[in-house]
């Protein structure tokens, strides 16, 4: 049994290491590539060791850009992406919490109808309704604004269902105790529901932040002013924008920078995030 176990452990580790390698290798290549000189890639051999140009490349993409090659500095783009992801995450959580609160705790006319309307938004993500949504946003004059970037993405129900599941596990007596304690509906929401949902909110925040950060098609459609470009679409512009060969070393530096914020968000919120998805509070 002992030998068997040792072999099993070994096998498991080999499989895991292979798996990690498959995932990590491209990231490694991107990091390596971002430290080389422009000419390195045109020779057709992919270097596997860091080059001398790391600092220089990052400085270039962050502050200078290569406007003539279709690559504006990405400092502003990172900021745009951050604002967009934040607004989407916060906005979605706010409206989901409120709509869940309404649906779970209030008996109003057409409650079921509204429930299904919210449910319906799940089947209609932005990509599906992109043409009419674009038309609406354009008519409202929201092209090239943060509002235009975020509002259409906020209006969907993903988080509503997670919160509904959670609210249903809160015992009825909690609400009754709060009523006896003199808490009105909004007070109950603020003092009890929201604090109890903290871990769920954190989990939702991580998911929504990354969702917002990774948006590509929508920002590509509605921004024409490069001061509203987001970093994900910036990558694409860098690759295809210019007539010349893509500046791979700069593209890769951008990619690395674009991947950082979501990683940071996950690192900082990991504890809450895991708790929120796995633990149900009594």
């Amino acid at each position, binding site marked *: 049994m002992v030998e068997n176990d040792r072999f099993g452990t070994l096998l498991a580790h080999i499989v895991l290491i292979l798996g990690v390698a498959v995932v990590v290798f491209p990231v490694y290549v991107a990091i390596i590539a971002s430290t080389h000189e422009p000419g390195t890639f045109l020779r057709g051999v992919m270097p596997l060791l860091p080059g001398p140009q790391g600092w220089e490349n990052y400085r270039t993409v962050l502050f200078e850009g290569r406007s003539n090659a279709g690559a504006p500095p990405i400092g502003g783009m990172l900021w745009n992406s951050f604002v967009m992801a934040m607004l989407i995450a916060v906005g979605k959580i706010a409206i989901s919490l409120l709509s869940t609160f309404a649906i779970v705790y209030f008996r109003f006319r057409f409650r079921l109808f509204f429930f299904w309307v919210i449910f319906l938004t799940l089947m209609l993500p932005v990509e599906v309704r992109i043409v009419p949504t674009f038309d609406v946003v354009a008519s409202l004059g929201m092209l090239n604004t943060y509002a235009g970037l975020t509002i259409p993405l906020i209006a969907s129900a993903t988080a509503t269902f997670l919160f509904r599941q959670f609210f249903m596990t809160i*015992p009825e007596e909690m609400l009754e105790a709060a009523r006896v304690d003199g*808490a009105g509906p909004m007070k109950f929401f603020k003092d009890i529901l929201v*604090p109890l949902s*903290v871990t769920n909110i954190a989990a939702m925040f991580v998911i929504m932040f990354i969702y917002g950060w990774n948006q590509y098609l929508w920002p590509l459609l509605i921004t024409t002013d490069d001061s509203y470009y987001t970093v994900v679409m910036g990558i694409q512009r860098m690759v295809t924008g210019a007539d010349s060969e893509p500046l791979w070393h700069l593209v890769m530096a951008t990619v690395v920078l674009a991947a950082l914020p979501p990683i940071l968000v996950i690192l900082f919120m990991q504890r809450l995030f895991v708790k929120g998805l796995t633990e149900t509070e009594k």
Partner: protein
Amino acid sequence: MARIVMDGLSKVYAGGVKAVTDVSLDVADGEMIVLVGPSGCGKSTLLRMVAGLETISAGTLTIGDRVVNQLEPAQRDIAMVFQNYALYPHMTVRGNLAYGLKNRGTPADEIARRVAQAAEMLEIAPFLDRKPRQLSGGQRQRVAMGRALVREPAAFLFDEPLSNLDAKLRVQMRVEIKQLQRRLGTTSLYVTHDQLEALTLADRLVVLNGGVIEQVGTPMELYDRPATVFVAGFIGSPAMNMVAMPYLREQGAVPGLPSGTDLVGMRPDDLSLTPPDGDHLTLRGSVVLLEPAGAESHVYLTLKGSRQAVTLRTQGLPAVREGDEVSLHAPLRALHPFDEATGKRVG
């Protein structure tokens, strides 16, 4: 401190289910009333109607000198202890106790004073800064009581507050609740399905069955003179034996019971294996099972010539064995005559 008057209270749920029908009850100031009955008898619903957590379909409810039918729970000046305690898990014990007062705009120093007082009274002062999940069941129970206490309400409402505790703690908390209620003199309604808890706590007991009051009275009144077959069977443990009148006549043992009696109740305690002094009734039966329980024993018998099971309770261990045929005796004054058709006591 307040009198609670229920006048013809009824609860009909959407769909026509009647949970409580025409309940009238006058609870005196400072009185401890226990609502007792089997599950689904409407006792919790009645309590929740008083609390304001269920709407009242008909009748009027007065707390103090206000009709409170339309008032929110918080405006009724009551405090409630829930079966699962319903403590706010994200707040400390102190936060739990203070929350209701804060919502009422009580000044901070007054809150601190009351919380300290309640914490001392319930011996939870060392836990004030812990979260509920760090407490044991008994401690949580105390916090739940404390939350009611700090409010200094007109009435306490208890909804089976001890049923989540183990047997030993339950007895201990029962005693404490009773002492606390005596000391504070706050009008209390207490719901339980445990008849022992009911008997020991109540100033007056209300037995509910099917949403209707069966009988109201002091524990001893209910025990000594149950008004219905249901109450007779529900109050007292082991339950009262019910023997049909025709059987008693067949045995030639027809005592002078009021006319219209067709069911005779005998408490297991009143039955004995040796003839008591005075007039008594004697039956024969065989021992099915002997159950020693320390200071007392329960003897399960089958009456001779029928399949009627009866239980007898006696001090110590009686000198009988399973299978023995024995005589059992009941004093005539301890018989409870009932009309089987109406379920009511006769005479």
